[in-house]
């Protein structure tokens, strides 16, 4: 959801780990695929020959990743410049001609209370989304999975998936109509003698608003992976558990959830890597309604300073900080997954 609309070259470039991993894994995976031969014994050349077809097939993807994920990373050098894109018609020439300022941009960032406010808001939103969003999707998946009649199930799934395809502009307009200060709920309350509610513009409850909007919009979509995992749980496990006298809850606890564990761990690690990306468009659209004190997150901070104020060097530095922290988080989360005995995203 975050990479729509507004250009965010700074942030995109600085979080390569997000997309970079997919294509990088296959070559390693191919080699390690265990055909009964120790890989250490083969020379590089032989392995290359053996896997050439596979390597050739990954080539286009690798090129795309290089071009769109790795080359733009080089643009992060502007974080060390007082970058002015307007001094020439060519971005590279502009970079060459912009003055170097060393770590000044980073110094400014660490002194900028607005930046720290954005960090705080980002983390609050991340944790809230993690705590609310995940359980809701798992719950929904279990619920849908327990529906036996295919027709009912198809309808329920369609209804749940649908909001995912609405744009944020639309979702927020709907929320405004329902929960805004002059919306349905407030007017209903007023007509019955209560005060109207300020749900859409109250900075204090903003994180909950944002989270409930994402749950409404995307929880249905999020269950797809879980449903797939559920479908692969062998039926005989349930039957065996039932024979042993396990009731419904115990079957869920001892059979279903353990089966979902690897998927949950994987998604959690991925989510943590994305932790600092908490919904750019959604928040930008509501930034004015509650003010930047409550709504500025790292992505909107980068956007505001870079695209809106043309302070590109400063914005790039903020984006770079975000990228580095994200990378650290994903490494830590992966490690934790390993300690828990799960596969995680990758293993050396």
């Amino acid at each position, binding site marked *: 959801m975050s990479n729509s609309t*507004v250009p965010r070259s700074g942030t995109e470039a600085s979080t390569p780990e997000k997309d970079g991993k997919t294509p990088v894994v296959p070559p390693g995976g191919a080699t390690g695929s265990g055909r009964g031969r120790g890989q250490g014994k083969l020379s590089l050349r032989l392995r290359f020959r053996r896997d050439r077809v596979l390597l050739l097939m990954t080539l286009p993807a690798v090129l795309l990743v290089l071009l769109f994920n790795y080359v733009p990373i080089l643009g992060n050098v502007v974080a060390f410049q007082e970058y*002015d894109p307007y001094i020439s018609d060519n971005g590279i020439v502009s970079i060459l001609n912009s003055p170097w300022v060393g770590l000044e941009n980073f110094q400014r960032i660490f002194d900028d209370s607005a930046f720290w406010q954005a960090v705080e808001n980002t983390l609050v939103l991340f944790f809230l989304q993690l705590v609310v969003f995940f359980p809701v999707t798992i719950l929904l998946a279990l619920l849908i999975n327990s529906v036996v009649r295919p027709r009912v199930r198809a309808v329920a799934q369609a209804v749940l998936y649908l909001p995912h395809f609405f744009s944020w502009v639309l979702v*927020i307009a709907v929320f405004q109509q329902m929960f805004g*200060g*002059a919306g349905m709920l407030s007017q209903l309350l007023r007509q019955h003698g209560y005060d109207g509610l300020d749900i859409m*513009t109250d900075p204090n409850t903003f994180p909950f608003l944002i989270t409930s909007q994402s749950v409404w919009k995307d929880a249905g979509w999020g269950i797809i992976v879980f449903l797939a995992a559920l479908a692969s749980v062998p039926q005989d496990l349930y039957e065996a558990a039932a024979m042993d006298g396990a009731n419904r809850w115990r079957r869920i606890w001892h059979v279903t959830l353990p089966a979902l564990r690897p998927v949950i761990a994987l998604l959690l690690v991925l989510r943590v890597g994305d932790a600092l990306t908490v919904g750019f468009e959604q928040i930008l659209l509501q930034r*004015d309604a509650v003010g930047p004190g409550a709504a500025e997150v790292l992505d909107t901070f980068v956007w505001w300073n870079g695209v809106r104020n043309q302070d590109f060097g400063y914005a790039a530095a903020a984006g770079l900080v975000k990228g580095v922290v994200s990378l650290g988080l994903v490494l830590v989360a992966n490690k934790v997954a390993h300690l828990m005995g799960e596969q995680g995203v990758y293993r050396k």
Partner: protein
Amino acid sequence: MTPNAASASSGPSRRSFLASTAVATAAVAGGMPLLAACGGADSGSREGTTSGKDAKKILPAYVASNVVTPDIPAKNGSPIGFTSKLDLTTLKTSVPKKLGKGGKVTIMSPFWGSPPKQDNPYYKGMNDLIGVDVVWQNQDGNTYDQKLGAVLASSDVPDVVVVPSWNMGGKIPSAIISKFADLGPYLSGDAVKEYPNLAAIPTDAWQRCIIGGKLRGLPMPQSYVTGIVPLYRKDIFDKEGYEVPRTADEFLALAKEITNAKAKRWACLDMKWTAWQMFGVLSGSEKPLGWNLVDGKMINRIETEEYLEALEWTRKLFAAGVVHPDALMGKNAPDPGPKFAAGEFLIYSNNISQWWSRTAEQATQNPEFKIWGMDVHGHDGGDPTVWAEQPAGIFAYVNKKASEAVIRDVLAVANVTAAPYGTKEYMMTNYGVEGTHYTVKDGVPIKTTAGNNQVMNAYVMVASPAATLAHPDFPEVTKAQVEWQQRMGAFTKKSSFFGQMITEPARYTNLSNDFEQLEDDITRGRKKISDMQQAVSDWKKKGGDQLRDWYKKLLDDNGSAAS
């Protein structure tokens, strides 16, 4: 960045062109101005301004051309007004020979409303009349500042880019100087006479087109009297017996009386822009307008008592619950038009052009509806001090990579769109094609639905004639608009840098980026007045005081254009 409403006023004031949403809203950001070389026309300096002899060398000659005598002549800086019927059969021709050479010109411009399709009859008719194939890239005017910086940073800049002065924040002035062509060779001095309608644009508007020591822009002239009007539902006021308030306290009391949330009625939207006027706060539409020399000291609007008082009063309105909840949404609030028509709120502050456009919109379906403008009084009931806006606030710039043929074609477009009232070109630009976009009833052109949807703020952005108010369909509105500006004009003062196009040094351009946001935080009760005082003191330390010295020196060197 810096706030302001004012800007808004500007653009469109003369025309109805903002049919739907407000420019004003758009004006979100304050603006910054421009630039130029103190040194001389050919110096490469990007800071400062160009005035006096240096400016004279590059300004186009002025050749007046009034095809029709205005019914209301300009007074106190007001636009000229036309209220009598126009004989549509004897319209003059101001462009006898098509100047366009049939080339293709792409234009990116802010657009308020839903842009029509490129192949609509209005765009086609205009292109035929001009002889140039204009291809529009209409962008949402309310968020134009968010796209401008990125487009100008690319290597693919359209042939023409329209830039409102309130969108000239950050490094935009520096981008304008390096990306756009010097039109001097085509327009300076007598050269402009090849384009008679451009030659009739007042010199003070052209003065504002000089940036970086060169004549780079094509202007949309406007009255320097503010165009931000407190608009209200006169029909409901009359019915309920509400009196138009004369003081800030009366306003608040009336607002409380009007508000009945249970019945879905609130008094107003965000009245910050009106508060600036009532309390006499210096304009925020452009950074230089916010500076004024008081007793030998350069003072910025944010340092004044009036500024804080205006914020405090606006805060009280929000706190009293008399502001429609939509206004809390800020820039992303829905178009106020339908809710104003439904009577959900009765007062809002916006561009004077809405006085006419809302009238026209509602005329057929809602005959009771009457929108009118309140006079602005001082907050204590005395005479207000209203600070002057700039005599031009929207500019069209031509890509420096454009060939001479393209530049000539752009000037051909401008020469048609700048045609004065009473000509066929004006009629086509503002009303479209007879039969398709308007019908004539009793000699008065009435826009059709197609006219309302297609003939909007596109071509007028390239260049416009001297500020004109003419709505033959609603002459009483036209008269009231001009008279409102004349009355306000009597209270209008010019601050030190009125009329100049000034570019601040790059190191200060981001200094006041966050003030508009902070104002909104305070009025909505999210931050305190003391936070503003803190921000002002930080601003001084971070460069505000040096910027003050810079402006002082600029004034000492160049003098003031304000009289």
